[in-house]
């Protein structure tokens, strides 16, 4: 089982959990099993063609899966997947 870290903006879609566990041997399998268990995450993680949305980064431990084998990247027992969508909360100088 791999651990998946859920960012704040996706937590509502997974029942408020900060971390999930999911089985699968690749990044794609694991994320698809997350989307099956929590259908609200489907459109947030995946684009219509089944690829990762470009505004979401996924890291296997500390490495961007896009510089590995993308969704085909192998995931081992005890690995951690970090899902990282862009955040922009701060001051309000432009509001």
């Amino acid at each position, binding site marked *: 089982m791999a651990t998946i870290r859920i960012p704040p903006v996706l937590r509502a879609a997974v029942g408020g959990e*900060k971390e999930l566990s999911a089985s699968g041997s690749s990044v794609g399998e694991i994320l698809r099993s997350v989307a099956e268990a929590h259908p609200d995450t489907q459109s947030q993680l995946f684009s219509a063609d089944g690829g990762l949305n470009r505004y979401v980064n996924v890291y296997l431990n500390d*490495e961007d899966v896009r510089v590995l084998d993308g969704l085909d990247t192998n995931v081992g027992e005890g690995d951690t997947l970090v899902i990282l969508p862009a955040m922009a909360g701060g001051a309000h*100088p432009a509001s």
Partner: protein
Amino acid sequence: MSPSGAEVLRNIKSRIDEVDPAAVREQVGNGAVIVDVREPEEWGAGHIPGAIHVPKSYLESRIEGAVPDREKHVVLYCASGNRSAWAARTLIEDLGYEHVESMTGGFTLWKDRGYEVETPRTLTAEQRERYSRHLLLPEVGPDGQQKLLDAKVLLLGAGGLGSPAALYLAAAGVGTLGIVDNDQVDLSNLQRQVIHSSERIGVPKVDSAEQTITALNPDVKVEKYPVRLGAENIVEIIKGYDVIVDGLDNFPTRYLLNDASVRLGIPVVSAAILGFEGQLSVFKPYDGPCYRCLFPVPPPAELAPSCGANGVLGVLPGTMGLLQATEVIKLILGEGDPLIGRLLMYDALAATATEVKVRRDPDCPICSRHPEEISDEELGVFPDYEAFCAGAH
């Protein structure tokens, strides 16, 4: 009968190598270490550019720290060439330095020849006291403090992140702090925006921040920009700054800032906060990835909570803003490992920090190109995004 001092000096000069200022001038920056052995006040009044300062009275105890390699070519100078001759003898005969020369005529002759002189600016007595804890750190010291005093840092927002960053950068003696903010102080800001105060509700944030900064440290000059940052003014505002502290709350301006800062080559220390969590990274153009390498496109409005009001633990922007201030100071001093090509995620509830690698995208629409190729029209451009995000307010 003991020989006179003048006789001893003649004897020493006959045993050591002396070198004319003209030859020393050619050796500056050419492998030789030029050491000024005069007293601190003489050094402070002007010295040979590129020289290091080891007063003769501290020569034996400090030269190894300054020039550890005894085979290194060392040229010593003083005011006239006498003290440096004594010092040369010490280095050769007592400390085993192999290639030592003393400059004839000293700094007086150097100046008379009209060669270049560097006059270090010195800290005032009050500054030496104010920054004494910095001066004790080898990584800062008088030179580092001078770099801080000379530095110009632009804060985008005097809000949650900008408040603590501005306070500590001001305390540290960053000489110029620019602040871009067109908002007024509101009661609901005071839970986290510690540069403001209850008496200043309704006051423009740039004015409130300036009051606090000036009261904290009169060395700091505050440049106020009570405007909304946009494509029409960004280049004019940010040019000339050494580092930018980004605490922006919205994606269109964040991309705009990225594109403009890449074009102008200004590093951006960026943080974002939400709830109990923060992100931090340093985007140094062409040394590391830019914001578009990390996030090539902004998220849709439902995944961009910045488009609306959200809760945040009041101390969290304090934590993240001070991490930003720390990175700013590291960049100014050139010390440590800046958070370039790395993104730090801090979870206040879990008390954990996680780091991931950020790579430069060889196909990045902005930083894969030369800065002069990035046109005004391209800065911050995303079709319809601004209208989309504005509609979500």
